[in-house]
């Protein structure tokens, strides 16, 4: 009995680790960002567009804007396509096709970010620079928001499709059969029964994809151009927050305030991502409970 108590205690301590880790990450980043926050006000840092670390100017606005542009572009490209694909897989596809698609989607979800980045450089950068930009009458080096958005869209596709398929498949078959028995076409079943029941879940799946897109680092920084100026069009380069961190963090920084500014950028990124992913997760967990 004593042994059992000891094991319970040990396992309990291990399971507190994630709670402890979450708190530690937030506190450590906050503590490291604090020196700068005591010098300048937070709105000043967030909404200023001047990024000149040598002169002590740490305006994060271009980076925040870059993150939002790239993510929204990816989202607009990926969401409709993934939802339609998910509907096909859950309500139309034969089980044989499902068997083929599932491993491919899993593989693509697991493909490393650097591979997507390389693919972007090989295919998407020339596509945007040589064909799409002239088509719209502008010039682009190819390293642009649109390029990053396209690469990112492909990266979040498997996530949105997989989660959406799960949500869509959870709609009870009796409901669908009842609608079919009333003479509804399959489209009507999807529109009035399946989507009506699972729209919030599908939205949550999209938000989950969105939160992945916000934090994606290597693939984006390989194709986005990394110019710290607030972007003006889809064809201009940008410099999202994760790329800022990846390019500049880790060098021992002698410029005062620089390290704090980067830690602040990390916290802002962390908060944006956490809000989105947590909201989606909590909703999806509730949904699963109601079904199970």
């Amino acid at each position: 009995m004593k042994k059992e108590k000891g094991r319970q205690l040990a396992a309990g301590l291990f399971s507190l680790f994630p709670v402890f880790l979450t708190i530690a990450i937030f506190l450590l980043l906050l503590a490291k960002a604090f020196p700068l926050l005591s010098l300048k006000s937070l709105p000043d840092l967030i909404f200023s567009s001047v990024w000149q670390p040598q002169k002590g100017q740490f305006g994060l606005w271009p980076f925040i804007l870059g993150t939002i542009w790239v993510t929204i572009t990816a989202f607009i490209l990926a969401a409709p396509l993934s939802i339609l694909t998910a509907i096909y897989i859950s309500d139309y596809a034969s089980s044989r096709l499902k068997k083929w698609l599932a491993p491919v989607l899993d593989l693509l979800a697991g493909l490393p970010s650097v591979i997507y980045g390389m693919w972007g450089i090989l295919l998407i950068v020339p596509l945007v620079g040589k064909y799409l930009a002239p088509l719209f009458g502008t010039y682009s080096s190819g390293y642009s928001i649109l390029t990053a958005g396209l690469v990112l869209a492909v990266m979040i596709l498997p996530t949105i499709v997989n989660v959406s398929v799960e949500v869509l498949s959870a709609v009870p078959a009796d409901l669908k059969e009842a609608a079919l028995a009333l003479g509804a076409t399959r489209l009507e079943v999807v529109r009035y029964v399946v989507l009506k029941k699972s729209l919030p879940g599908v939205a949550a799946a999209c938000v989950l994809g969105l939160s992945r897109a916000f934090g994606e680092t290597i693939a984006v920084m390989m194709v986005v151009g990394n110019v710290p100026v607030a972007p003006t069009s889809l064809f201009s380069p940008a410099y999202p927050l994760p790329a800022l961190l990846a390019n500049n963090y880790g060098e021992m920084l002698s410029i005062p305030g620089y390290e704090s500014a980067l830690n602040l950028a990390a916290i802002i990124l962390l908060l944006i991502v956490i809000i989105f992913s947590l909201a989606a997760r909590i909703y999806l967990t509730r949904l699963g409970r109601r079904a199970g």
Partner: protein
Amino acid sequence: MASHPAGDNSRLKRRRRSESVFKFILLASVILVSLILSVILVSILWKSLPALKLSMILKTPGTGYYLGQSGGILNAIVGSIEIAFGATFLALVIALPLVIYLNTYLKRRSFLAEVIRLSLDVLWGIPSIVYGVFGFLLMLMFHLRASLLAGMITIALVELPILSRAMDETIRLVPAELKEASYSLGATRWTTATRIVLRQALPGLITSVLIALGRGLGDGASVLFTAGYTDRLTTSLLQPVATLPLAIFFQLASPFPEVQQRAFASAAILTLLILAISLLTRFFGRKLSRNKIR
């Protein structure tokens, strides 16, 4: 139906037409998605397999390697394997007792279980670059340099929520009757968890570990400032270590076409490794469904 055939017929036609239009749109998007996905796989392999030579796998970078001279990326292959296996082991050391505790000692909706699952959700959402930042700050606190150990710990943190959640989900599928049968024979919770629950969930647990391993192999952002990079093989925990994602990243940025070719070859190696893990995951996943107790 027979009473007003004309009106019904045109409505039916319209509904049929929208049905077929919708089906066409769905099919088009599925085909588009499959096309994109196959283009990615094919273009990567097509570009990179020709660059793949045996010396890439068997040699470490020689002098002048980054100017196009001879050598390979054995350092990055070995380094990636060392760091991913080490990290997965570390993550497993924490995740295993964690999921046992969650599923056998705590009631499903107890406050503590909710808090732990919530924190796992938070950790799951944190981008790996932020783990990299956190790992770097930890390194400074403990006066570590960029090393295999630091990289391993950082990747373990990235893997922990993925591993725990996947394991939690498989263990939850173990039927309650099985546990109750074990308790009724006088087994303790620990014995039930390790001898019955874990054994029943084993294929699923292996799948979870493989998923985490794949993430560990491919994650570049978190090791960017924690693992360093080296042209030699890493033989101690305190030496810096090369990883495949960073090898691809650095070589791709080179102005020399020979070096870029090697980036493609490195990408082929990484993709094949991930592919192998993905196939293994499938294999165990199939086994899992075969062992189901009904």
